[in-house]
């Protein structure tokens, strides 16, 4: 990646300080068009612009496109928050953990258990979930200090099963149908359904997105990326690997837990069944399918994976009827088909296209760039 962060506190002083990102854009006195041209001259920026425009267009569509689209938008926003949380750990710090579902469960159950206490009023449970997620994330990071890779994956698997077992046991004793979550309400405004709910989710997503963007612009983000590339090299360069790795786990846990709290608000209850292994896998799939290297990729992946079942539900039935499976086949077997489909996507993306959609777009952009530069050099007489 070509991020050049502007601060460098946790990292040893570097001899030369690179230009902050976008400095070329701000310093020049030219007109708008040349500036834009220069901005998009850098490889990768076109791809990111395309992804950002698509996401914003989708978000606006969900805001004004009627109740069904709004419903899809709500799920997308919740899982986008979770994906941002997971991408801090997987994309930035390079630690793969299969405990996203567990952290979402922690957030959801925290929200449910605060029901009836002094901390019940709406935005407070979100903050408490954030805090609880941070603490559990720190604890979950402890195995990550001793080892990475396979052993870390197994440790996170253990965490996932333990959290779900605890939630299941709690539920079996106290609330068989799930822990009820109160309706979100802010200053007399009902945020529990429709556009207000969607806008609330979107606001949280934007705060989380730009918050993590700001954090990763600083030396913290640089430290995480250094750890991702090589822990040994990072340690040699003066990065406190232990500390920043733990913070990556904590930050990821906090944001994923926040997403769980939002999820509970959308559904109206916290039920352990929603947060099983399949969810953890789906979250990781989002990161891989969107593009593991960027937050924008995580958002894209979250939207793709969340919206896909709805799209299939709408458009697959005629196709299925055509091949003789019956139009209701998908609806009847939805959970199995989705699980199988996501698993297959996950398998293919991890093995063959680890940079996901972003990687494909970047490849397309490179091809396009070569074509365009070939064309311009031919137009100008082949002198350049």
């Amino acid at each position, binding site marked *: 990646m070509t991020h050049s962060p502007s601060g460098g506190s946790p990292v040893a002083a570097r001899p030369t300080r690179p230009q902050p990102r976008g400095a070329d854009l701000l310093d020049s006195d030219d007109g708008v068009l040349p500036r834009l041209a220069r901005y998009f001259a850098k490889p990768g920026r076109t791809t990111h612009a395309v992804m950002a425009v698509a996401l914003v267009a989708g978000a606006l569509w969900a805001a004004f496109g009627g109740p069904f689209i709004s419903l899809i938008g709500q799920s997308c926003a919740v899982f986008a928050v979770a994906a941002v949380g997971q991408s801090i750990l997987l994309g930035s710090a390079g630690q793969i953990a299969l405990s996203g579902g567990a952290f979402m469960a922690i957030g959801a159950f925290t929200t449910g258990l605060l029901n009836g206490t002094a901390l019940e009023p709406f935005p407070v449970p979100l903050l408490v979930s954030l805090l609880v997620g941070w603490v559990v994330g720190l604890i979950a990071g402890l195995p990550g200090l001793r080892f990475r890779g396979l052993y870390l994956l197994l440790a996170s698997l*253990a965490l996932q099963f*333990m959290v779900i077992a605890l939630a299941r046991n709690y539920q079996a004793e106290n609330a068989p149908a799930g822990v009820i979550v109160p309706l979100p309400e802010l200053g007399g405004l009902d945020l529990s359904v429709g556009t207000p709910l969607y806008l609330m989710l979107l606001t949280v997503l934007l705060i989380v997105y730009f918050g993590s963007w700001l954090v990763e612009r600083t030396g913290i983000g640089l430290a995480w990326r250094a750890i991702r590339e090589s*822990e040994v090299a990072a340690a040699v360069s003066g990065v406190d690997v232990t500390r920043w790795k733990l913070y990556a786990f904590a930050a990821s846990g906090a944001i994923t837990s926040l997403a769980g709290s939002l999820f509970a608000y959308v559904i109206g209850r916290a039920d352990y069944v929603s947060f099983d292994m399949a969810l953890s896998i789906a979250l990781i799939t989002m990161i891989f399918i969107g593009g593991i290297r960027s937050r924008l990729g995580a958002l894209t992946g979250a939207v793709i994976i969340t919206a896909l079942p709805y799209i299939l539900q709408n458009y697959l039935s005629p196709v299925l009827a055509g091949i003789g499976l019956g139009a209701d086949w998908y609806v009847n077997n939805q959970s199995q088909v989705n699980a199988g489909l996501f698993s297959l996507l996950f398998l293919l993306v991890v*093995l063959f296209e680890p940079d996901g959609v972003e990687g494909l777009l970047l490849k397309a952009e490179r091809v396009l760039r070569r074509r365009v530069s070939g064309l311009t050099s031919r137009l100008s007489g082949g002198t350049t």
Partner: protein
Amino acid sequence: MNVLAQAVEGSLVTGCIYGLLGMGFALLFRASKVLSFCQGGFMLLGAFIFYELQTSSQQPLLVSVLVTTLVVGAFSGVVYLVVFARVASRHAFATSVATIGLAGVLQAAVALRYGTAPLTLPEVSSTAFHVAGAVIPMADLIAVCLAVLTVVALVALLRFTPLGLRMNAVADNASLSEHLGVSAARVAAIAWALAGAAAAIAGVAFSLRSSVDPVGVANIGLFAFPAIILGGMDSVGGALLGGIILGTIQNAVQVTFGARWIDLVSFAIMLVILLIRPSGLFGKTEVVRL
């Protein structure tokens, strides 16, 4: 009927099933440094193919077991060659992660074909033996015999045949054995086939004594992880012992606290072992530390 003796019997049988799965994990891990998350998927496949053979085509028991083992073993090997081989040699870790996806695909396929409701095989035989106060049904005896036979066969294969020698060589030092003319890719494919076969036998053993449903059986594959971590990831014999220890602990938890604490305790044990002794009881110490 003696409760303790019965609990011991139950622990042994559960342990053998975990052990069978665990041996597959260990074989794969030794051959390709890939930790397969889809052993549960192959076990599921084995259980349902066996179910199909026993119920709708009414094959004799032995034929069913053999056919199931061969089919799943071959399938596992082919899946490795077609899907994983190209990537596995370079990125063992990415392949391990990708096997999680394969497990999901297999589980969904079986769930689509057979539904998610538990299916029960007709009883193999109503004969039961009484040993030291415990009742041992025929099905349990067959399950344990299958496990023991498989372990003996695999250990003998590793110890006494040229193929076993090659597998040990690759496990010990893959690049050196490549230089000495051993095809690590072929060894890995064979290891996948053997692991698939072992998982299929575990599936058969499981379906003999309990009803099978896609989610439950696939979860057994994940529950074998505490067993292999206990035994050590690269020890074939350790996997069986780890399985039996885990089975014993689970039975003890079930008797004292109730069945719903089993998951929690099993995975807590796994986490503790990972923290204090990641190589397990019999494994080689080979953990990346800073």
